[in-house]
């Protein structure tokens, strides 16, 4: 008759963790490849409108203007309590003159930065991230200021429209 012997000591074998770091490194590289560094932090709240006919932004030669309700104190307010943020800086004045100065500075610094990166400063895309509740007065004010500085190539930020198409 067969007998089942209970062995005296029973130990769970140790799990080999040597490959764990390799797996995590792979994760790391995966994330490094698919993501981009955050360049500027939005200091305004904005939900972009949705669209189906969007084009991809050329990130190498583009500079961002945000427009929406500010999340920090001390921002100058345009019509309907929106404010404008150029790259990293919130606009501090909303008079036509103040806005003009801010746009001048923004366009100039964008052109300088573009030159440094060996890009054509005349082909800069100005990427407008505007909240969808913004009124057209404010948008038109910004567009006019950009036009006066000969910054003509713009792209309106949109989200993908999931419902349509």
């Amino acid at each position, binding site marked *: 008759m067969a007998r089942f012997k209970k062995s005296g000591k029973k130990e769970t074998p140790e799990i080999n963790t040597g490959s764990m770091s390799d797996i995590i490194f792979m994760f790391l590289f995966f994330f490094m490849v698919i993501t981009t560094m955050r360049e500027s932090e939005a200091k305004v709240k904005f939900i972009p409108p949705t669209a189906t006919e969007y*084009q991809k*932004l050329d990130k190498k030669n583009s500079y961002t203007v945000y427009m929406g309700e500010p999340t920090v104190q001390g921002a100058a307010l345009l019509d309907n309590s929106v404010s404008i943020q150029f790259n990293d800086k919130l606009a501090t004045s909303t008079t036509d003159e103040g806005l003009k100065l801010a746009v001048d500075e923004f366009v100039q610094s964008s052109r300088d930065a573009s030159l440094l990166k060996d890009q054509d400063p005349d082909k800069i895309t100005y990427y407008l991230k505007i909240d969808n509740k913004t009124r057209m007065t404010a948008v038109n004010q910004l567009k006019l200021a950009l036009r006066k500085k000969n910054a003509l190539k713009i792209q309106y930020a949109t989200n993908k429209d999931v419902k349509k198409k």
Partner: protein
Amino acid sequence: MARKVPSINTSSSADISFLLLTFFLLTSNISSDQGIMRQLPKYSKDITQVDVEINTRNLLRVKVTNKNIVMVEGAKWTENNWIMLSDNRTDVNSTNAANYGGEISKLHEIAYEFFANARHEPDLPDTKSTPISEADFGDYPVTQGVISLECQNYATYETYIKVHNELSRAVNKLRDELSKEKYGKSFKVLEDSSEESDKEKVKAIKKAIPMNISESSSN
């Protein structure tokens, strides 16, 4: 006797890479940036009022009102009697529904018909045969139609982008059709291609089917 090399304890390298991983997760963003491209017109101080004679058949007026209602008027679309399009379903389905021509998404059909003028109707834009040098394209009857987009001050940006999206949709559809007919490829494929010859083709198609939008604002 050969000495044994003691193995290095690697259990902490997993922790280190975890830290790196979290660092990259926090400082980066996945969202791909995209949007609708537009070229603004040059600013000139002297010419505040430009009176360009445009034949009525060549003009389609699109107006976004303060209440975010889109109104369309053109030679074919009953002069002095705007077609109203609304984004608001309750507007479209309400008792005065007869006033509304539908939702904003209908605008691309109107713009498409306007730019295409496939049957050469007299109340749709004229075409003018224009030589296009890029990619040996030859002559093409380029539409003379212009869409004038007027935005009232209290219209919201959301509606404005919707209108732009619909206009782009009409033009993209036309470009796509021309591209398929001429080169057997969709316009998107040509645009995404990095080949020099394809870039020329894109330029040619863009010239053949221009996006003529003129914008203005009002109170």
